[in-house]
């Protein structure tokens, strides 16, 4: 499922999801729910993106009541640029790839 951008369909789905609200910190389950990716697929993608400096990751500052602190993610400026380039370069591929993502259709939303 490779494409000209060099990202897999699953990675494109994650990039599209984070690109939709680039200033917001997202948590893993939210991204998984919105992309349809399973945890065993999503987290390796996030790890590789973080390794390449395309995604920032941090823990929540405050300890919320009744649940553990979450690990949060958002695109770095480089990640945002790479995501926009990849999604613009292969929009049809990403939509086609979305069909295999958890059986759910994921249409990339690119924030201006």
């Amino acid at each position, binding site marked *: *499922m*490779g*494409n*000209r951008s*060099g*990202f*897999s*369909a*699953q*990675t494109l789905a994650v990039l599209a999801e984070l690109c939709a609200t680039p200033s917001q910190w997202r*948590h*893993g*389950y939210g991204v*998984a729910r919105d992309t349809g990716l*399973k*945890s*065993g*697929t*999503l*987290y*390796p*993608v*996030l*790890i*590789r*993106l973080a390794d*390449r400096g395309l995604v920032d*990751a941090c823990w929540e500052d405050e300890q919320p009541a009744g*649940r*553990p*602190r*979450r*690990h949060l993610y958002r695109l770095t400026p480089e990640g945002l640029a790479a995501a926009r380039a990849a999604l613009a370069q292969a929009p049809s591929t990403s939509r086609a790839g979305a069909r295999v993502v958890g059986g759910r259709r994921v249409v990339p939303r690119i924030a201006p």
Partner: protein
Amino acid sequence: MNRLTRVIEALLQWSAGLLPADRRVWVQALWAEADEVPPGWRRLAWLVGGVRLTAREATLPRRFGYPLAFTAAAAVVAWSAWSGPAGDSAIAINRLDVITIAVILAGLPWAIRRARGPVAGGRLARLVRTGGYVAMLALVLAKAAVERVADAPPNNLDGSARAWEGEVVFLAVMVGYAVVILAFTAQRSPAAPVTVAIGTATGAVVGVLAYALGPLGFPLRFTGPWSAGFYDAAIAVGVLLALCAPVAAGWAATRRADRSVPTGSRFWPGAMAGSCTGAAAALVVAVLSTATIALLPYSSGLEHWAAGHIGQWAPVASYGKSVYGYGQAPRHGYVAGNSAFAAGYLIVLLLGPLLGCAFGAWAGRAAGNPGPRLPRRPGDGPPLPGPVPTPETGSSPASRS
């Protein structure tokens, strides 16, 4: 469900400890999110994904799984081959077999790694390498079982020197197979992945077909006119298919690669595919048939069936005397004869890759005109689709991110 979820949670927490610190934080992140996931199957699936993540990040299968599996398989083969009286030359040969094969299969990857690099990425290379190892260990196991019965005193009348000579040849052939399997599945393989895939798959099919037509290593006898005629026709078709298979594999591999290969070298992908076809077919049929022969003394039903279909081979296969296997009741003579046919597979193992290589090379030369030249992929694979190479790992999406 709750109990299973707790077990997986505990497994996830424990397995996170196997990871380096910079990776452990990701598993902790996944675990912290688990409370958000609705309970039941969805939460269980989320946690199972975490266990998969730890296994992948710790590269457990590569670091521990393959060596452990190989050690276990080699131990089983050694245990099986070791049983028998120490003075029996057949048992001594079996012991030499298993020790040498284990050393070869364990040590050769290190040597091939230096020459050809580590195992190629993707599932195909690991599948072929694992399958080849399994087949070679299974062949040693089956061969040891045959020789334990058929070559045990008083049947090893030819003298042990001849048996030792044959053993040296067998081990040399096994070294050759191991080198080919490891080299063809290495990163700097002389053959492209598609060539290996076409050749190996074709050869495996041919091997299974050959086994189906002669599970004891020779043509069967059918008494009924219809069944005999049908079997003769099947044999003719089988021989034709066996001859055509390396040609077809060589042709297909060359057509996949021809635009990237210089005109004068177009025989190469065909030769590689044909070699893979011949080697895979020979290995598959040798393993299956030798294993069937090995089962003969232990299965009265199989023995009865074989006795009814040996036909004109009976005088050759049966010496008219009993065979006394170690710890076994007297067996009919055809077991000893069949051991000779089992040894015949050594010839099949030798000739299979050579004939396949020749047929495949011929098909490669004959396989159409090349198209326009494009940048060449490593090995003899198809041309690159564009200026930016696309990783084709075929396994984890993350590895392509």
